[in-house]
């Protein structure tokens, strides 16, 4: 299976049609997002939706009872299905009982999850997908490639060929002709169908109502014209009231593709009625005679009962997280190999399908936090993925390589330093004159496929900082410098630049002795145990001298210290309090320089045009993005913004080892955007980003320099 996903990624990256379509779609989803977010208070609306979803999931058992009663009173028949087999059999039995031979179906992720269409087709019942993209994918015998455009990977020529084969007539390749052909063929399917199958986006317990959102119009027809309507609904879709449903409506379409609402928002309550004629009841209206609602569990109760993962049930399936996911943007949906895609799909796959498959998917995550930033239900997807990795370690143990790296080496600062010294010697045969490693031998060769690596600097930072272990006893802010591994071992000069800057800004910087790795690599690989050990160690080391601030030049470290230590230490009240205290004092260097009074006098002679790359954890983890720009400009440089400045660079932590080609594809987009600015220098504020961008530009033999903002500012100091 491991090679399976690697192969699928390789195929997707090599698929020219797919890559072109993804490029087009990226532009559309970006403008859609801008449109969707305009004129609303997104944070307030998503807090509201989060709270309502949290309440609905907490109250789920009683909501199910209430929904069943209301829907039944309105004439619907509700069936609770435990799992896929149960749901599929129920629908098949219904179809057989009514002699159904033709079914039309609107888009539903749940029916894909259940494999309902295959189940019906195996029983000889024709089941036609009516969403245009889904229909194309169905004719091709494939899975949807993208949540917004299921068939984006198909060219007009390929679609024309599929339609020619399906209709037996030659179909031209004009968009209009393709659309007309599909529409007309579907119109016939609607007339023939004895059963319509839909999903539902929301179930309203108070009124027994289903809410179904579509843009094409097929949903209206599928749910009205056939004599039978079967709605297959995940039990997590239930909410209390119409106002709860509004919270979903306010965000779903805006987050998905941008418009305020989907074109058709359809509320269906029970069965239709045509009233009376001359006092005689007609006994029904023009809608289906029977409405069956299949409420599906299929792993949802288990997910609800797992506190570490429960919030995945708040998902409203808008696809916003996929639209911004750099991995999804590189390979699209077919790579995931099952129904649910991207980060949230990884969690859903674990509970609704196959935990093994989910673990495989979790290794693709770059940890860039983009999904969390846009989720309308406020789901912390990166955290759920981390929890999944952690659960795997609990259940299956830790792979040898990671055990050695995290528990054997990084967990202890002494051993990390010894390892760095050993590597500084071992690397010699591979080190080029400029201190870069461009080709490593097997089995490490993949590490240098997409980027060149910086050599370990034998003159380690800790040694250089010996004279600055203790802050000067002055009436200045005491600032502890937390170096982080990349600075300590690869870029120790940067540490010296930070001290020069802090001195110039009137602070009293010092280098707390014995500081260790922040623990992020281990923690986000799921190793909470190593994370906690390092948290304890660093909390003690960093707070020992009672600093006013703790400053970093690696936002990955800063976000770990500030955002994760408090949660990690929750089990120990005293330690937790220290973690909170630490968190309050943690600053990114750019934040602190602004707090310390902005720009110091700079030489104005060496101003140049630069572009700036937003590190994921600085912008989305710490909310810092204006400070670095301000510092760059006030230092006299001209800032030329690149396209997608805040898109991930593809460093991706773990993923760099597992899926270097995926990281390479994300890196490529970043480097293309950097080169498109035409400047000679790219500035960033994260050591890991520096490593990745430097390594990538070096592989391209590009003359563009990568400079950490600390080095840029220090160089310009008077």
């Amino acid at each position: 299976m491991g090679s399976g996903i690697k192969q699928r990624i390789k195929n997707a990256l090599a698929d020219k049609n797919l890559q072109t379509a993804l490029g087009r779609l990226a532009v559309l989803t970006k403008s859609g997002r801008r449109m969707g977010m305009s004129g609303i208070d997104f944070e307030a609306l998503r807090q509201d939706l989060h709270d309502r979803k949290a309440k609905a999931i907490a109250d789920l058992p009683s909501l199910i009872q209430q929904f069943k009663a209301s829907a039944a009173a309105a004439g619907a028949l509700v069936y609770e299905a435990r799992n896929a087999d149960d749901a599929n059999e129920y629908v098949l039995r219904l179809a057989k009982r009514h002699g159904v031979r033709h079914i039309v179906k609107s888009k539903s992720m749940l029916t894909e999850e259940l494999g309902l269409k295959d189940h019906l087709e195996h029983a000889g019942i024709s089941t036609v997908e009516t969403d245009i993209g889904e229909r194309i994918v169905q004719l091709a015998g494939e899975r949807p490639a993208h949540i917004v455009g299921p068939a984006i990977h198909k060219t007009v020529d390929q679609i024309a060929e599929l339609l020619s084969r399906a209709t037996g007539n030659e179909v031209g390749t004009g968009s209009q002709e393709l659309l007309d052909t599909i529409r007309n063929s579907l119109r016939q399917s609607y007339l023939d169908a004895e059963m319509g199958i839909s999903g539902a986006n929301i179930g309203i317990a108070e009124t027994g109502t289903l809410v179904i959102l579509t843009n094409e119009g097929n949903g209206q027809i599928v749910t009205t014209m056939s004599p039978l309507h079967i709605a297959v609904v995940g039990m997590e879709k239930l909410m209390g009231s119409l106002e709860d449903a509004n919270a979903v409506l306010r965000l779903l379409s805006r987050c998905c593709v941008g418009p305020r609402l989907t074109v058709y928002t359809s509320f269906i309550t029970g069965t239709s009625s045509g009233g009376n004629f001359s006092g005689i009841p007609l006994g029904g209206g023009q809608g289906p005679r029977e409405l069956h609602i299949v409420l599906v569990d299929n792993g949802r109760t288990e997910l609800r009962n797992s506190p570490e993962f429960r919030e995945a049930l708040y998902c409203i399936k808008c696809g916003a997280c996929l639209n911004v996911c750099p991995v999804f943007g590189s390979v699209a949906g077919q790579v995931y190999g099952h129904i649910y895609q991207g980060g949230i799909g990884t969690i859903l796959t674990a509970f609704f399908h196959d935990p093994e498959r989910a673990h495989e998917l979790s290794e693709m995550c770059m940890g860039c936090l983009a999904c969390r930033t846009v989720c309308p239900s406020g789901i912390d997807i990166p955290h759920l993925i981390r929890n999944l990795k952690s659960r795997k370690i609990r259940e299956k143990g830790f792979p040898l390589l990671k055990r050695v790296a995290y528990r054997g080496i990084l967990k202890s600062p002494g051993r990390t330093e010894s390892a760095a010294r050993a590597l500084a010697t071992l690397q010699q045969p591979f080190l080029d004159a400029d201190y870069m490693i461009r080709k490593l031998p097997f089995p490490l060769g993949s590490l240098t496929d997409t980027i060149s690596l910086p050599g370990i600097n034998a003159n380690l930072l800790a040694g250089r900082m010996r004279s600055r272990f203790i802050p000067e006893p002055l009436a200045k802010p005491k600032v502890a410098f937390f170096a982080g591994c990349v600075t300590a071992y690869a870029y120790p000069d940067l540490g010296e630049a930070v001290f020069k800057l802090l001195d110039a800004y009137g602070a009293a910087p010092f280098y707390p002795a014995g500081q260790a790795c922040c623990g992020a690599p281990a923690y986000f690989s799921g190793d909470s145990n190593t994370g906690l050990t390092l948290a304890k160690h660093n909390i003690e080391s960093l707070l020992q001298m009672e600093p006013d601030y703790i400053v970093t030049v690696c936002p990955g470290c800063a976000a770990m210290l500030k955002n994760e230590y408090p949660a990690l230490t929750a089990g120990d009240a005293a330690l937790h309090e220290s973690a909170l205290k630490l968190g309050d004092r943690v600053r990114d260097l750019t934040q602190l320089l602004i707090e310390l009074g902005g720009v110091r006098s700079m030489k104005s002679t060496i101003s140049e045009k630069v572009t700036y790359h937003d590190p994921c954890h600085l912008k989305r983890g710490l909310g810092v993005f204006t400070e670095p720009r301000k510092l760059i400009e006030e230092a006299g440089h001209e800032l030329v913004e690149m396209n997608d400045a805040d898109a991930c660079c593809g460093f991706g932590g773990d993923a760099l080892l597992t899926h270097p080609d995926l990281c390479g594809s994300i890196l490529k987009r970043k480097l293309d955007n950097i080169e498109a600015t035409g400047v000679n220098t790219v500035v960033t504020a994260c050591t890991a980003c520096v490593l990745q961008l430097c390594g990538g530009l070096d592989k391209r033999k590009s003359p563009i320099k990568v400079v950490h903002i600390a080095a840029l500012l220090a160089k310009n100091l008077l």
Partner: protein
Amino acid sequence: MAVNPENIERFKKEAARAGSKVFIATTADEGVNYILSLVKEKDVQTVVKSDSILAAGLGLRKQLESNGVRVVETSIVQWIRQVSGGKEAPLDEIAASISAATGEKIEPDPGAILQAARRVLKDTYASAGLGITQADFGIADSGTLVSLENEGNARLAAALPRVHLTLLDGDCIVANLTAAAERIKSSSGGIPGHKVPTFITYLTGRNTTGDIPGAFAARAQGPEEEHILILARQ
């Protein structure tokens, strides 16, 4: 409901943004003329329409028919009345009229009449050039039309014809989704057991799909144009 010109303007702007064509008529003549010229421009032979007080007020059916357009009523009660020549009649006479109109033998039984009506109407929706329905109210901040019904004919008349036109009373526009929910809750379902009507449709703009390369936001499976005629008495 109080007239709120701001709501009309906001509604118009948002509906247009979503892809609808909005026309505000201040007199009945303006309204009728808009529809007659639409019918002409789109070469419409058959109009399907659902019950509408606004259409009745405009005398729309007569106006269309005198311009050579066939108008089919889509609520079953109105359809029966239309087929049986507008008069109340006993079941066997109705069945006879329907038999004559459809060329099939229909038994004088409510179930059989219902099925016959459904069969005939199903074909008529899709072949009609224009569907005319009335929205119960509009939502200003998304340009949305809200239609409440128990029968299902309005949503079919809105989805299946080549062009769709919605009549909207300019006085019936609420501000936002919250106000819409309030309004829906206060309108009882009208059928025993229903707390809300069977079908509520929020229609926003014109149907689209992005599924065909090179045709982003193309017409999908509904009408090729969505027209909204707002009747705003001065």
